[in-house]
């Protein structure tokens, strides 16, 4: 490799300047490189262990019936977690419905209408603060605002908690997506006599849409795996749900509940639910990246 370093070393060696020191330096260089690479690949070990165990322990119970049946009672075997899959999809859906429109609209306001304005900088700051708030606080908020107010644990409360969680992600990624649209496109549009609204609707949004969808899907993937906001808002249920105002099962809470019980079958089910959840989250993530890279 034509490296300036090696060239410099060769230069010194030829002149015979302090070659013992040079060997030390070069040795130290290799040592640190090796250490750095070793540490990097050491991070693989736990990840490999997690993936291996999730697949190994999760596969035996994975089958069609697990998606169509109800969880077994304590100590019993058989059944599935169909209600938890539906509950997860429903609550992520509620969260998306609540946070998607305001998040994207706020991003449009920040980027297109008043980039330097006061409301824009306050909103941006707020979104940053919201990303820093622990996810369990979203649950605490939904508990106070919905559960205490209605007197019931419900999927609505869970959905609201997930919505709060998703809002800053959607807002900030949409902002980045809009910032990615070239200035020249906007100027060309104005130059052709389009209004600002026409420019946003016909030029900017279509151009930014793939990146916005990526952000939305990343938010969905994150929310689907979250347990903390649901554990005391949606709680859990052994049954199919019949309304938005009753305790509702989710995959994440099922894993939590079943992992700490002494029944072998339930623990196996927690692993299978983990496998399904990891597949769901990874698939969403990968799709999000593909949607994005297709355009750019």
């Amino acid at each position, binding site marked *: 490799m034509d490296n300036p*370093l090696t060239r*410099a*070393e060769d230069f*010194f060696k030829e002149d015979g300047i302090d070659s013992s020191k040079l060997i030390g*330096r*070069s040795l130290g260089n290799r040592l640190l*490189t090796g250490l750095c*690479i070793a*540490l990097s*690949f050491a*991070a*693989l070990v*736990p*990840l490999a*262990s*997690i993936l291996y*165990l999730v697949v190994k322990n999760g596969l035996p119970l994975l089958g069609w019936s697990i998606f169509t049946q109800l969880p077994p009672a304590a100590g019993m075997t058989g059944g599935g977690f169909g209600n938890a899959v539906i509950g997860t999809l429903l609550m992520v859906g509620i969260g998306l419905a609540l946070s998607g429109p*305001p998040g*994207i*609209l*706020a*991003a449009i*306001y920040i980027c*297109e*209408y008043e980039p330097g304005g006061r409301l824009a900088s*306050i909103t941006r700051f*707020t*979104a*940053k*603060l919201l990303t*820093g*708030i*622990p996810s*369990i*606080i979203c649950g*605490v*908020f939904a508990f*106070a605002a919905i559960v*205490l107010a209605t007197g019931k644990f419900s999927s609505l409360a869970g959905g609201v908690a997930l919505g*709060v969680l998703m*809002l*800053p992600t959607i807002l900030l990624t949409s902002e980045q997506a809009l910032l990615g649209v070239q200035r020249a496109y906007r100027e060309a549009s*104005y130059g052709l*006599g389009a*209004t*600002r*609204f026409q420019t*946003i609707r016909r030029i900017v949004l279509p151009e930014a849409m793939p990146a916005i969808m990526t952000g939305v899907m990343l938010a969905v993937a994150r929310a689907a*795996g979250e*347990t*903390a906001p649901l*554990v*005391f808002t949606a709680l859990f249920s052994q049954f199919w749900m019949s309304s938005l105002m009753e305790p509702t099962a989710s995959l994440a809470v099922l*894993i*939590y509940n079943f*992992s*700490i019980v002494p029944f072998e079958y339930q623990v196996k089910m927690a692993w299978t639910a*983990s496998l399904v959840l990891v597949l769901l*989250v*990874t698939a969403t993530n990968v799709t999000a990246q593909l949607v994005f890279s297709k355009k750019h």
Partner: protein
Amino acid sequence: MTTDKTNSGGIEGSVARRLPDFFRWITALGAVSAVFVLGWIFWEVFEEAKPALEEYGLGFLTGAHWQPNRDRYGVLPFLVGTVATAVIALLLAFPPGLAIAIFLSEDFLPRTAREFVRFVVELLAAIPSVVYGLWGIFVVVPLIQSLGTWVTERFGHLPFLSGPAYGNSLLTAGVVLALMVLPTITAISRASLVAVPRTLREGAYALGATRWEAILGVILPTAAPGVVAATILALGRAMGETMAVAMLIGNSSRLSWSLFAPSGTLASLLANQFGEAEGMQVAALMYAALVLVALTLAVNFAGEAVLRYTERRTAGIR
């Protein structure tokens, strides 16, 4: 705004002419709603915490006992647990996190190897917290249990290593948290390493520095504030992380200094007790939530400030 008026043409009619302004207001409403949500969160938590705030005041922070059956609430053990697990996690995650960041920003190995490591780190970030918890129960808990037994037998006279050793302990939670914050440290550190101006790097090489002399002498010092910011933001994440910790820490409300003793964090306390809390306990938990928010916001605020300082500092050199 002005462009809205100059042209909407006769083609789209008067409704279309009004639409632009209307749309502007809708987007502004979106922006306001985000601000409103943050305010609502604070108000709601504060309002519910009020009875506990009035009853216990600041003594809540220094009280060492959490006894719902006697309506006695002090959050100190959980405060200590929160800080301790987060610090353990950072101590463990920082060296590999930074090493990976350096590895990803230099050209030690071909691009494909780097892309692979990057993919792995992103995957670590995508795995849900409960799955870490489940894995921890079956892998890390037995490991720490046997390690703890060995260590406490020999070094039990030290307060931090005193026995008896439990599998569900402060250290177990810290170890799993380390894995969870590693991607944060790596991603932000890498960004600040990549942002180091080429000229500095090349200048170091031109002066005869080896690769690591350049990294340790020039590149890292330049990127240092970014690395510090990464660490602070990771600390914020570690303090707020809930499920994996709740599943692994043993959930004790007794104040203990040993790494191998069960403990609790603010977040795990909330996760465990909210579902069945009543009366004053709800208020006390809301107060604890308020403490957690204050703590994480302060940490994140510091991290963001350092990050912005870094950006400003390197912006000048090109």
